[in-house]
């Protein structure tokens, strides 16, 4: 067999079935997706379609039922600092550590000495715009600032990929927009591969190189991957933005209709 072209992150024919209390639920049916190194990929889909399940499997939090996920040709079997996760909920932060100590955490686990890790962490604190807040505890910071800590805390490990699970979903609209712009700036500076989960099409177009739209669950799969070929920073009023919005929206509308139809079918059968 010839050596296949070097793949970065590959999700290959993955199925995911949940079983609890004798009930089975098929979350993903034969999902296939490839991510390129250095790209910003947004995974978009209606709620309950299994976006977070995909992320949890990539992070190594959830086992897959069948299929294969590999990162640089290595199978994913559990959590690893190569795959950093930014969570939606800020209770993922360590409330007993200061902002700086939270950011240092990954290096401390690696046994990096105090001075070196302080240096790296301070640099990232500056990158995410939290200079002057190093000594504050998470509960003393605003929601947006807490998400900045989460981002810095992941970048400190210099992971191969950053997985972000709707990290701005619980912020107010204005802070969310600011954080989106900030994320583009940080991503440009940090040269990371990002998988970003969202249900907000606006957000996806502002951020992504490519947008993957999933079908409605249960048994979700990739519906379509759309390239967003727009220069950054992007504005919601750019003609290109609107164009892209229309294209994605058409696909999403179809999925919504499909979901409604299958829900109606289900209800019809039940009745």
């Amino acid at each position, binding site marked *: 067999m010839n050596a296949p072209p070097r793949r970065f992150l590959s999700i290959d024919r993955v199925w995911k079935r949940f079983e609890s209390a004798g009930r089975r639920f098929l979350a993903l049916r034969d999902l296939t997706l490839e991510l390129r190194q250095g790209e910003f990929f947004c995974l978009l889909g209606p709620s309950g379609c299994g976006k977070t399940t995909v992320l949890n499997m990539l992070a190594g939090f959830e086992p897959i039922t069948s299929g294969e996920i590999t990162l640089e040709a290595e199978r994913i079997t559990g959590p690893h600092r190569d795959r950093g996760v930014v969570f939606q*909920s800020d209770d993922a932060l360590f409330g007993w550590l200061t902002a700086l100590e939270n950011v240092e955490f990954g290096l401390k686990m690696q046994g990096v000495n105090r001075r070196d890790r302080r240096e790296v962490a301070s640099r990232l604190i500056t990158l995410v715009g939290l200079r002057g807040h190093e000594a504050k505890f998470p509960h003393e910071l605003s929601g947006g600032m807490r998400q900045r800590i989460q981002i810095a805390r992941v970048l400190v490990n210099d992971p191969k990929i950053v997985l972000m699970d709707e990290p701005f979903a619980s912020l107010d609209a204005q802070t969310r927009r600011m954080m989106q712009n900030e994320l583009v700036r940080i991503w440009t500076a940090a040269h990371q591969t990002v998988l970003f989960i969202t249900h907000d099409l606006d957000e996806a177009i502002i951020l992504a190189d490519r947008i993957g739209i999933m079908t409605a669950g249960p048994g979700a799969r990739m519906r379509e991957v759309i390239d967003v070929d727009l220069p950054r920073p992007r504005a919601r009023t750019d003609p290109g933005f609107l164009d892209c919005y229309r294209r994605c929206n058409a696909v999403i509308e179809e999925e919504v209709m499909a979901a409604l139809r299958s829900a109606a079918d289900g209800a019809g059968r039940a009745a």
Partner: protein
Amino acid sequence: MSDERTAPPNLAADHAGGDEDEKVRAAWRSLGVTGARVRAVLLPIASFVVLLLVWHVGARAIGIRALFPTPIDVLAEARRLIQSGDLLTHIVASMTRIIAGFALGSAIAVPTGLLMGSLPLVRSMLQAYIEFFRYIPALSLVTLAMIWFGIGEASKVFLITYVTVFIVTINTMAGVAAIPVAKLRAGRSLGATPRQMFVHVTLPASVPFILTGMRLAMGAAFTTIVAAEMVAAQSGLGFLIFSSRLYMQTDAIFVAIVTLGLLGFVTDGVLRWVMSMVAGRYAPPL
């Protein structure tokens, strides 16, 4: 009109007659007496004075010191016990046992609770014992403790350790169970090994529950020590209560009871203070 809020104009009219009230209130304020302060300081003192008065009048009505001493009798007895040094001896005896048992019990319970909370294997091994023994009151073990450990310090320390272990273990387990999944996942994907997770995430995240458990255990330790000292001791506040009955020294019993209340109050205060010093950062107001 009050200075904290501005009433709408139509309501302000209703307050026209309140000018006089306002002057009186301003006078009180200038003396440092405000509503908040009255509630916080003066009301508790007032209620305490009333209690003493009722007690005194009631005791005088009964008229038998050996049955129901007045506060003044109790105060006199307290002075006698303090001057002779007896009260201090008893306090030191009781507190030493409590602190020894409490420290030993916590030292056993915190690791046990953390392990039970984090490792299903350990949990299924120990859960049944915890559920069984937690319903056996320490008081029922007093005589056994005497048989096993004699009437020296060991039997009392054993009983305090016993009550502490179960209360702190169960609270520590609850603390581990209450750690948000995201926090555990974050720790692992940031590269913490299972051992590092235990030390750097599970333990610090459980601290608020552990401290709550320790406060509850301290309360239970007070209950237990008195009972244990009544049955098997030559010193301590429980012993003071029990031996005083022989000579109908009711006033000495009252002294011991009030001392217990004060000691508990002070101990809890000290415990909370130590906690806030040592672990303030582990219990953020979030």
